[in-house]
């Protein structure tokens, strides 16, 4: 890597295996990747290829068997053992919108807990107002503050999850299939929101998805995982239009597009090609 000062997140030779002493299987078998500031890295691959495992190591939810995870050159330990500023720097958004929120807690108390845990990020002055501002940022009504996960739609839940993550002003957002469980029409809303916020908060993202189309839309670079290894990595356009690795090719071959309802120039239905 040309300049380590230009990397934000650096994962080196990560190895994780599940299943104790015997019957251990390497879920991640020597993965290295890096994310530059304000860059979005898409991580794609089939089910079981180890994407979530990488994400959990980065978030500190899992202790890697071997390898290092560093943030601006500082090692990231397990969540809860990190120094507060590192703890804040990396946040995560999960796949299942509803169970990402404690169903017993109101949105307000969820956010209040964040601020209690990291007092530096707590707003000065009127917290209710700050909360409403935060919710508005996420495209949510202020009245959502008093509700619990059960009373919110999937899209709203995911917005609250994002709000919770952003409340501590992170530098890197790990999104593990953050839109996969949503209906297509809502998926588009959340993607739009993420892209918006990425720009406004100068966020870097590790964006995990099995939907190549979505990754193509929002990732700067993409890494393709297969059986615990990264088999190909590069600029999104290059990898997804001219794959070099056989596995990537297979993945692309299998991926369906809408059965050609759109002329190649893409003008017919307003879906402009960028």
């Amino acid at each position, binding site marked *: 890597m040309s300049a380590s000062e230009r990397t934000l997140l650096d994962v080196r030779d990560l190895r994780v295996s599940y299943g104790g002493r015997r019957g251990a299987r390497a879920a991640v078998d020597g993965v290295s990747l890096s994310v530059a500031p304000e860059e979005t890295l898409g991580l794609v691959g089939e*089910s079981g290829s180890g994407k979530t495992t990488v994400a959990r190591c980065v978030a500190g939810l899992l202790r890697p068997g071997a390898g290092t995870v560093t943030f601006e050159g500082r090692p990231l330990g397990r969540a809860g053992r990190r120094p507060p500023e590192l703890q804040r720097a990396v946040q995560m958004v999960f796949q299942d919108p509803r169970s990402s929120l404690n169903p017993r807690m109101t949105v307000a108390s969820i956010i209040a807990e964040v601020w209690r845990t990291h007092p530096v990020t707590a707003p000065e002055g009127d917290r209710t107002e700050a909360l409403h501002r935060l919710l508005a940022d996420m495209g949510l009504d202020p009245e959502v503050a008093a509700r619990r996960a059960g009373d919110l739609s999937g899209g709203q839940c995911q917005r609250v999850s994002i709000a919770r993550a952003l409340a501590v002003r992170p530098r890197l957002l790990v999104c593990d299939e953050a839109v996969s469980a949503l*209906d297509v029409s809502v998926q588009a809303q959340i993607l739009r929101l993420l892209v918006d916020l990425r720009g406004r908060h100068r966020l870097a993202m590790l964006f995990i998805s099995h939907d190549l189309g979505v990754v193509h839309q929002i990732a700067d670079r993409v890494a393709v995982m297969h059986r615990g290894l990264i088999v190909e990595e590069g600029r999104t*356009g290059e990898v997804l239009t001219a794959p070099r690795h056989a596995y990537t090719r297979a993945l692309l071959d*299998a991926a*369906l597009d809408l059965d050609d309802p759109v002329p190649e120039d893409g003008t017919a239905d307003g*879906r*402009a*090609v960028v």
Partner: protein
Amino acid sequence: MTPAGAGTARENGAGKTAPATDGPILRIDDLVVELPGPHGTRTRVVDGVSFDVPRATTVGLIGESGSGKTMTAHAVLGLPPEGATLSGRLLWHGEDLLAADPARRRAVRGREIAMIFQDPLAALNPTQRIARQIGEVPRRDRLPRAEVNRRVVELLDRVGVPEPERRMRAYPHELSGGLRQRAMIAMALAGSPALLLADEPTTALDVTVQSRILRLLADIQAADGLAMLLVSHDLRVVSHVGERVVVMYAGRVCERGPARDVLRRPAHPYTAALVRSVPAVRTRTALADPLPGAPATPANRPAGCAFHPRCPMARARCRAEVPEVREVAPGRWSACHFAEEVPGS
């Protein structure tokens, strides 16, 4: 509740025309499914759905979560959840299944209409070898054991399970997801049905497996001249396999017609929005302008057109009047008051 075919069916035109030359194999006419809701209320989770499944054709049924796709498929099979009430007509070769007696309905199940479920692991009995589960329908014909086994091997071979003699003795959990779904398909084919209901058959699978399964289904369908009702929330899947599509929203049909036409030139703003939100894989598409709000559910369906709160074209009429499904062009049916104005149509 209402006896099938009683005059209470809303006139929505579906029953009047019979475009297919020899008539559809299945005609769903004003199907209503009501489920008990909280506090003694009843929710219409399927509200006046009508469409045809012609012989040897694949019909895609799409819609977002909770739109009533599964419920429709289960109603066709006669297996709605406990406490559900069904009304309308389900004409199977012209015979109303809703009015038929239970024995007749049971005879149709598995033999004439078979079903493939979304999650093959959950849908297969974990304590029985797959051979036994696949052979269950042939066994009902009192075939000799060897004959049943031969048939099971044949079916597994047909759906592309390698080493069928060995695999037939496996338990579901010993198979990979793809093989499980193949076993499930073999099970559905065991009774040589004329109509296959496939409820999200590939949603739980990986893309690579998904494409193979879809191809398998298409092959079988073509070879056997099967009719298939493919339920999916994934437009891309339906666009590949379906010859016709039915789009549902909040328990109602909003649009139906030939698949290519519907997806190219939607005649309903909801379909248009769906098509827009599907990103392309091989080309980079811009982020679509998302629809506002969350999908309506049958439990709290807005008055008038259920889609109106999210609709960019909504007007006063949409808020007041439930739009009928009407033929907006030959073979194209839409439930929008202003179908003709939908951009791209």
